């Protein structure tokens, strides 16, 4: 909490009569008796902004998607490759969540606990996906693994297909979502109380036992939160996927691209139906994540 006193650039003035009589002494928990239109003006503006810019569009999608019951949804899933697209999206997103869950936690651990040459570089590199446009990510993978590159042609010759194959999509998703795990886990790791680990050591617990019983419970929430964020992000990824996957129906078509296809075919209701499902899933995941991140170490059930 900042306790700096306000700087005085105006010459001292006698206190104004409208100063609240109860205002002496101590930090007030809420702003006092400012002109009412000030606070309401603020609220109105903020709420209007969010209502119009966020709530309205979502409502539009939901109502158009299910305005006529589940008809639109059924039609959408009748299209060739529709189910495959959803399945592929969910599987790849889950894989991404697990892989980056593991490696993201590892990277966070290494960054927090070890000192080694290149540590600062690693920390910077981890943030790069946040800075790079998703489309450019796809382009990069294309540059590296496409037929025109030495790496790409080498792999192709040995039967490893990256571009225009699910592997490429996976790499794109992994790239884009890695920072989500690292930056969710890292702050919690930094705040870990080392003396809890020391206490465990003194009581006879080895490194593994200590990690399991003392450290992991504190890390479970942020790791879970990170993985859920990754999953939510991965199921909706478009830019990186569209360039890398080739969008081959039944093979590399993902749900977001499928939705795009429906829009291009002037089937907005169907698109809205599938979109609602996708969005609903993401939203629930983000809500759960927010709960997890609200700092509550997982309580040990019994032991």
């Amino acid at each position, binding site marked *: 909490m*900042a306790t700096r006193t*306000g700087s005085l650039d105006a010459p*001292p003035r006698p*206190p104004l009569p409208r100063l609240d009589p109860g205002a002496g002494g101590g*930090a007030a928990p*809420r*702003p006092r008796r*400012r002109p009412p239109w000030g606070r309401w003006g*603020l*609220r109105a503006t*903020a*709420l209007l*902004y*969010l209502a119009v810019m*966020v*709530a309205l*569009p*979502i409502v*539009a*999608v939901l109502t*158009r998607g299910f305005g006529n019951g589940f008809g639109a949804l059924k039609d959408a899933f009748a299209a060739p490759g529709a189910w495959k697209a959803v399945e592929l999206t969910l599987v790849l997103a889950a894989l991404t969540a697990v892989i980056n869950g593991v*490696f993201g936690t*590892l*990277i966070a651990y*290494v960054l927090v606990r070890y000192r080694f040459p290149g540590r600062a570089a*690693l920390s910077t*590199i981890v943030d*790069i996906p946040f*800075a790079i*446009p*998703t*489309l*450019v990510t796809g*382009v*990069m*993978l*294309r*540059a*590296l693994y496409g037929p025109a*590159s030495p*790496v790409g042609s080498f792999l192709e010759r040995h039967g490893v297909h990256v571009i225009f194959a699910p592997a490429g999509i996976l*790499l794109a998703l*992994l*790239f884009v979502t*890695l920072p989500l795990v690292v930056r969710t886990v890292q702050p919690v790791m930094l705040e870990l109380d080392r003396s809890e680990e020391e206490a465990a050591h003194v009581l006879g617990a080895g490194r593994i036992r200590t990690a399991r019983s003392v450290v992991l419970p504190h890390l479970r929430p942020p790791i879970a939160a990170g993985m859920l964020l990754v999953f939510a992000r991965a199921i*909706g990824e*478009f*830019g990186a996927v*569209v360039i890398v996957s080739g969008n081959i129906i039944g093979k590399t078509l993902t749900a*977001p*691209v499928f*939705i795009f296809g429906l*829009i291009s075919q002037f089937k*907005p209701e169907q*698109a*809205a139906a599938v*979109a609602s499902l*996708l969005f609903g899933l*993401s939203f629930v995941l*983000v809500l759960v994540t927010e709960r997890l991140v609200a700092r509550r170490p997982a309580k040990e059930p019994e032991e």
Partner: protein
Amino acid sequence: MSARTAAPPVAPNATAPRSDAAILRRRRLIHGSLTGIALVYAAVLLIAPLAGIIWAAIKAGGHAWVETFSQPDVRHAFYLTLIITATTVVVTAVLGVVVALMLARDPFPGRALVSAFVDLPLAVSPVIVGLACVLMFGTGGWFKPWFDAHGIQIIFALPSMVLVTIFICIPFVIREVAPLLGELGTEEEEAARTLGASSLQTFFKVTLPNIRWALLYGIALTTARAIGEIGAVLVVSGQITGHTETATLFILRAFDEGRDAQGYIVATTLALVSVLLLSGIEILKHRGERKLAS
């Protein structure tokens, strides 16, 4: 009082090895392996693709760079990206601060719900955002009649592209500024008000300077995201070259039409701009934080 036995000090490695040196060696091995794995993963996943695109862009040759940037459609694409980004930044920054103030300072019922709404755009696939815009302003949309009557084109035109980009960028400024506002507390503002400052004066002279770095970082994130937006603008723009084609849309078309080199060049440019922007702000933020702490 105490008897000090004159035992000579014992050098560390010469002691009866109760597996001590072995423990150290094993621990160092574990450290090394874990670090190694982390670095390899980061290298393969992150660095290699970066290297790949830089290599491809360089391979195209300086001549291709000049040629690409002298093309009118390329220039227009960048220009459009700039306009959209600038508008988005202004809107999300100003209104973002308003929302942040409300979230942090106003004991508002349903605050958690509002917070969820703020985070909502992060959960939505960009394609869905574009779809929402089409649903609202396109054929059969609620708002189409009104805008048609006034001769304003939303879909397949700039306004829709700005709108979707704003939606997508809403969280960034708010999520940077709101926590800081909460941490800072209201004491300084109260002090200013007791000294006679109006609400507006207080905001500009006291609140704004305090949140300046968080705000700038939020703006940087917004800019990077807006520059890179593809999914939503693809849906609403109609990809009309020279009119509604942003830099990202140009890249997409370039690859569609087989002009890979140009795609790589523009892509590298966008990546460079974003990375430079964010690292620049990061450096400034650290400097700002250090000043705050002293």
